[in-house]
């Protein structure tokens, strides 16, 4: 039972103990809280859990199968696409949404369409390379 003022982000982290989804700014400006709702990437900090009643929510924990890493997880490791790692689960969920949308083929397009996920360590070049690798594999 969640109260109406519980965001989807807080419901995931505090009620379901799914702490892979991170709280960064809590105002839709950083992308750390990105999850997939019905396959579409959204900021989970700016929607109420009660508004998503009945929706299929995929968090970072649910991206991979039981035994293998998701291709994006492997690509982020291959390309060292993080430093502190705090933004990484949001980056990877956002990239999964990006690949599903199919609108980014060039590095410029990946940069523009990943702009909703901020990396304060500045791992952007490696993030773009990792997403390019995973895009080729998809």
């Amino acid at each position, binding site marked *: 039972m969640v*109260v*109406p*003022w519980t*965001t989807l982000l807080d419901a995931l982290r505090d009620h379901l103990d799914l702490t892979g989804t991170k709280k960064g700014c*809590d*105002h*839709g400006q950083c*992308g750390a809280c*990105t999850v997939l709702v019905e396959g*579409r*990437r*959204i*900021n989970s900090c*700016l*929607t*109420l859990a*009660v*508004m998503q009643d009945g929706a299929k929510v995929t968090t970072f924990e649910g991206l991979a199968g039981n035994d293998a890493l998701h291709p994006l997880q492997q690509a982020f490791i291959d390309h060292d696409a993080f430093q502190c790692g705090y933004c990484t689960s949001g980056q990877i969920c*956002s990239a999964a*949404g*990006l690949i599903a*949308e199919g*609108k980014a083929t*060039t590095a*410029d*397009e990946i*940069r*523009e*369409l*990943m*702009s*909703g*996920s901020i990396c304060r360590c500045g791992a952007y070049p490696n993030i773009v390379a990792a997403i390019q690798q995973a895009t080729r594999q998809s």
Partner: protein
Amino acid sequence: MINFQYARASDVADAISRAATDPAAKFIAGGTNLIDLMKYDVERPPCLIDISRLPLRTVEETSSGGLLIGALVPNSDLAYHPQIEQRYPLLASAILAGASPQLRNMASTGGNLLQRTRCPYLYDTVTPCNKRQPGSGCSAINGVNRINAILGTSDACIATHPSDMCVALAALEAKVHAAGPAGVRVIAFADFHRLPGDTPERNTNLQPQEIVTGVELPPKGFNTNCSYLKIRDRASYAFALVSVAAALELEGDTIKDARLALGGVAHKPWRDPAAEAALRGERAERPAFARVADLLLRDAKGYAHNEFKIGLARRAIVRTLSQAARGTPQLQSVKKIR
């Protein structure tokens, strides 16, 4: 966030009647702006009426040959809709210039129109703001006003409307469909948003308990010669300092019809029919574009930190009209401006 009641509307009539029962209640759709304002304690609604499941998610042909966009169509779906991409590329481009993919997946068409200014003093609840607390004063006029308006300001407010989508909708002369206790009505886009005057707390001419049900596009989409150029402090994911929507109808080199709207400079998307009229019959070249920029900006007034916007807007107008005339619109994924 404060505690609040939550109710889900079953249809448009139910939404309107619930709002009439509780005038302080707010409608919520995408939530990207309202929930943010609630976290900052700027909005404190006792009740949210969830309209996000109402059947307003289609894009349909109108009898006049235009399109009617349901108020709940997400911004991303609209930008990538084949009819919008082909017939109204100015609108598609403007939408993709705004926010982030995550936010565009959430934000609704109607909510984009109704989003609030990002003037920092609206959000800073310990400072005066005539929007937040009418009569308390405007902190921006003598404060940090880099992002604020240069056209149509008043002594009470110098906030801007932050939308990109609305700048294109203004240029395309869209119409807003609304439903309320008194029935349904259609509002010309130019009459939807307001200038601040002495009532900056009123953002639009929508009446209490009225709900936006759709946005209608006229048949003419200017799809051959148009461009949306957005200038901001970051390359992506920032609000406009200045943005320009330009659309031309050409006969050879001569301008037959022109539309020009500015974002980031006023309390509403800024259009000037006199400036657009001055383009008709002119050759679609730089001298005419420079004259029209001067005409459009003739009453512009800068404040301590945003005087630069006047020159920036002048150059952006000339550049965007040049892009439209060449048929080489600014692509939002390309950061070089040619």
